């Protein structure tokens, strides 16, 4: 097949400009890759979690009660919209794992003695379900089992209703209910200190005196049923049995975390690829515009021969399409690979038993359309100019650009002292302000991307600093199975190594203001705390007033309340009083959406003797091990959280994912900077080759003409770096808001070192490109200069 001469020319042009084509292609590839990665990960996460939930029959509505008769299950099943119901026994227990001194908490969950559960089924990874007649058999959650190296045949002990039981592991499993496994009061999964154990229902019923009864119920709903309606109906049935309120799947802890993560991925998918594709559009414009300018005589000739505007325009469109296609194909490849990698990482982190990475064509087509569209948009002006040239005008050399003196915003005395090469650099830069701006902006954006990504690390440090290190003076927080009198506090105070104690009482409640309701907890703490301090995001410790609620701004926004408003607190436990409590103040916090009240005021409002649900301890490190041993023996203990472990887990968990993403963004940022500067330098060289060669003929050395070429890029870089810092600051600020969830708010903090590293990164990437182009100066054809015209 013989190629049309224009197509042959196209291929030769592409080969001649292959460096620039590749540079732009890589920028496009970054945008496409990011978009494909985000969208395919999103798709995979959604598909995988949906399939997981479907396959293992994850329930739609949940409720915990103190104790309800089994017969209630039928009445729940009769609620309109309910498809199936399953009752369970769920209790927490202290565990003792050989070789691990620290207290380990476990969630004991019942499974039928024979057969699989109806809802919330287990994905068995090893072994089998507990058998009927074997009360000590348990199935462990896989993360917990892996963390302790436990498998079928291994043993551990648990305190069940005050008595130690020896348990034997018969299986290891995953569950859709525990994609995100967090112990009570914990922020992050800590697989070594919290696990889930599935045991025979009769075993648990017997151990906890719940024969013929249940304390947890899940229900699946018919398609199209409004969960809230069923929640209300279940509340009406379960209130008298000590229910803390039914809740839909959307509020189930594990699912909620997963949803938050997916939301953040979506935000990322929107923002970053757009930046790259926008820059790619500008770059393409620069290259095509230059190409058109250089080929004016050829265009004129073609038109003189009878080629129409459409044919000529189409020729340059094809050029752009090739660049766009190169970038898209590269981006598809990187995006697919990164999407798979990222999803595998997520699957690992969230413990999905399988991974559905079957990306649809959608993300790829969207990315292709966006990238080629951006490139075409960028080139459209240049292509139109090419088509619009009249043949005669095109065949004339263009008039030399008109410069102006003293256009530079510099003092006259300084201007007069400039040497000519510097003058050339300054005038070239200022003569085409748009082009200079685009180049500077490209470099600035690469710095901004670095700041935005590294800001996450700064934010994590700040969270750890304020939330864990400043606010939390306690070493251990002991959770109690149920509210206890202050005697529990005194008992803990007497334990070995305990230097200070502080009580806390948490009550589950529905907080209502007008039509808005939030199901959460109210935390009673001493008004002057010494261990577990109430700190706001600015690091200020808050003392609580004697009466009234102090709530986080997130909660205040959810309820649309302001200080001075009175909210209705429907307590979901004990006597279940309905209280009217004024909101005295709001405060900003990074984590959760807490509501605090003075513990004595809470106890008074509950009309009960003073009681506590958890106690904060400060512990002498020398007595830690002894204390843990004793805590394990206490039947009233439901949870033991160690602050040091929480910090480590927080760092490890976030660091793992964060560092990888920061790594990706560093690569993307470098691609952006290199792409922009390489193109700018190549274009500058092409346009100024004649002048630079002339200067070589006049006796300027290579170094001296390098100064002119590199000087322009250098000047634009010097402008771009602080500009990038500013843009990065603004973007980080915007993104921090966009990434806010109810679980945590990312504090907006950018350390000076982050600016430093980002600027250094931008500078190094620019330097690398410039050095690449510099080599071409050696190949300037001095002789050709003498003969050719402009």
């Amino acid at each position: 097949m013989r190629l049309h001469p224009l197509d042959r020319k196209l291929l030769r042009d592409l080969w001649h400009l292959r460096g620039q084509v590749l540079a732009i292609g890589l920028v496009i590839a970054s945008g496409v890759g990011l978009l494909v990665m985000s969208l395919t990960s999103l798709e995979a996460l959604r598909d995988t979690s949906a399939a997981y939930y479907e396959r293992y029959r994850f329930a739609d509505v949940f409720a915990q009660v103190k104790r309800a008769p089994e017969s209630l299950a039928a009445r729940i099943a009769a609620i309109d919209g309910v498809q199936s119901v399953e009752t369970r026994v769920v209790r927490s227990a202290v565990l003792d794992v050989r070789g691990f001194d620290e207290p380990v908490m476990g969630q004991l969950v019942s499974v039928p003695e024979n057969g699989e559960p109806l809802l919330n089924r287990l994905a068995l990874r090893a072994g089998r379900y507990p058998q009927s007649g074997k009360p000590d058999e348990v199935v462990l959650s896989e993360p917990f089992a892996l963390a302790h190296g436990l498998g079928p045949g291994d043993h551990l002990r648990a305190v069940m209703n005050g008595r130690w039981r020896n348990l034997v592991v018969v299986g290891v499993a995953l569950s859709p209910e525990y994609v995100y496994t967090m112990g009570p009061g914990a922020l992050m999964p800590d697989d070594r200190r919290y696990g889930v154990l599935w045991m025979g229902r009769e075993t648990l019923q017997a151990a906890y005196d719940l024969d013929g009864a249940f304390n947890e119920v899940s229900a699946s709903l018919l398609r199209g049923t409004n969960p809230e309606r069923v929640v209300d109906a279940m509340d009406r049935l379960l209130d008298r049995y000590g229910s803390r309120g039914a809740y839909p799947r959307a509020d189930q802890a594990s699912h909620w975390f997963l949803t938050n993560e997916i939301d953040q991925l979506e935000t990322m998918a929107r923002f970053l690829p757009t930046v790259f594709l926008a820059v790619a559009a500008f770059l393409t414009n620069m290259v095509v515009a230059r190409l058109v300018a250089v080929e004016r005589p050829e265009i004129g000739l073609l038109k003189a021969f009878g080629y129409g505007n459409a044919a000529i325009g189409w020729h340059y469109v094809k050029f752009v399409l090739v660049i766009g296609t190169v970038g898209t194909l590269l981006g598809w490849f990187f995006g697919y690979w990164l999407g798979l990698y990222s999803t595998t990482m997520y699957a690992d982190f969230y413990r999905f038993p399988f991974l559905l990475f079957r990306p649809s064509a959608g993300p790829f087509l969207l990315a292709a359309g966006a990238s080629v569209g951006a490139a075409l948009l960028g080139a459209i002006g240049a292509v139109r100019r090419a088509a619009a040239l009249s043949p005669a005008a095109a065949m004339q050399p263009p008039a030399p650009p008109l410069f102006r003196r003293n256009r530079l915003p510099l003092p006259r005395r300084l201007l007069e002292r400039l040497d000519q090469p510097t003058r050339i650099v300054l005038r070239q830069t200022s003569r085409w302000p748009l082009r200079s701006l685009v180049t500077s902006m490209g470099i600035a954006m690469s710095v901004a991307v670095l700041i935005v990504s590294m800001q996450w690390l700064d934010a994590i440090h700040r969270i750890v600093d304020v939330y864990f290190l400043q606010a939390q003076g306690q070493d251990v927080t002991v959770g109690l199975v149920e509210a206890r009198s202050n005697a529990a506090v005194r008992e803990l105070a007497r334990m070995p190594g305990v230097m200070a104690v502080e009580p806390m009482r948490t009550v589950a409640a529905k907080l209502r203001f007008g039509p808005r309701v939030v199901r959460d907890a109210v935390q009673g703490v001493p008004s002057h705390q010494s261990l577990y301090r109430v700190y706001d995001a600015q690091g200020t410790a808050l003392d609580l007033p004697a009466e009234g609620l102090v709530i986080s701004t997130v909660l205040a926004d959810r309820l649309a309340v302001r200080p001075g408003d009175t909210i209705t607190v429907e307590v979901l436990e004990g006597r279940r009083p309905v209280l009217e409590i004024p909101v005295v103040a709001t405060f900003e916090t990074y984590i959760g959406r807490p509501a605090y009240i003075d513990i004595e005021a809470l106890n008074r409002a509950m009309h009960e003797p003073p009681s506590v649900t958890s106690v904060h301890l400060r512990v002498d490190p020398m007595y830690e091990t002894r204390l843990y041993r004793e805590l394990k023996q206490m039947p009233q203990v439901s949870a033991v959280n160690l602050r040091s472990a929480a910090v480590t887990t927080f760092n490890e968990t976030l660091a793992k994912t964060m560092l990888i993403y920061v790594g990706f963004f560093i690569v993307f940022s470098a691609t952006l900077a290199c792409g922009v500067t390489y193109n700018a330098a190549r274009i500058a060289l092409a346009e100024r080759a004649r002048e630079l060669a002339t200067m070589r003929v006049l006796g300027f050395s290579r170094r001296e003409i390098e100064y002119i070429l590199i000087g322009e890029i250098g000047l634009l870089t010097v402008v771009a770096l602080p500009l990038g810092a500013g843009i990065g600051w603004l973007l980080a600020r915007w993104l921090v808001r966009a990434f806010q969830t109810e679980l945590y708010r990312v504090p907006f903090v950018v350390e000076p070192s982050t600016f430093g590293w980002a600027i250094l990164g931008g500078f190094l990437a620019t330097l690398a490109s410039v050095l690449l182009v510099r080599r071409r100066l050696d190949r300037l054809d001095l002789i050709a200069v003498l003969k050719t015209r402009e």
Partner: protein
Amino acid sequence: MVMAAPGTQRAVLRARNLGKVYRTGEGEVHALRGVDLDLWAGEMAVLLGPSGSGKSTLLNILGGLDSATSGEAWFEDHDLTRQDDRDLTRYRREHVGFVFQFYNLISSLTAFENVALVTEIATRPMEPGAALRLVGLGERLHHFPAQLSGGEQQRVAIARAIAKQPEVLLCDEPTGALDSQTGVLVLEAIESIHRELGTTTVLITHNAVIADMADRVLVLGDGRIQQERRNPQRRPARELAW
């Protein structure tokens, strides 16, 4: 063939058996075939010949822009054929002024600044304004090339070439891009410079009329000096017409 000059003049530029072969994809092009040449201090010489005769190639080698394939080329006692790129750059910087057919001015610099570009790196330069006044452009110092006519641009180029007070001035078709009237103005400027400064001047042209303004005319053809003649009398540039 070397013609001895009258008196005891020294040769500023010498070529002995100079050869240049270009290798193209298909074969070889012999641009110069054993050229012998002396250019004397203070003389004005014209290299005359049609396109492809080798005159530009000869100028390029003498100007340190190109390397010879065989033979020798000397500037005073410097063997140009043995010099590396750095040495040739210094040679051009200090000793040679170039005037190109298409002016080759820097578009972002004014007339004054284009001349200053060269005087800033020269060892014993003229003041840029003085050089421009020599070529009759004292009133156009701060104009950019876009604001100057072709003839004016070429005169700026001449001022730029001589502002460093080079020993040699090489002009490659200085009137090639100009009409005859403007071309004469440019030649007058070259003539004036030569008279004032006594610079050894070499002009390449295919226009035989221009040869009349030189002391000596070297006719090139097929890569060789075919003919060499002395003009008994130089014609003033203003009398030339084509």
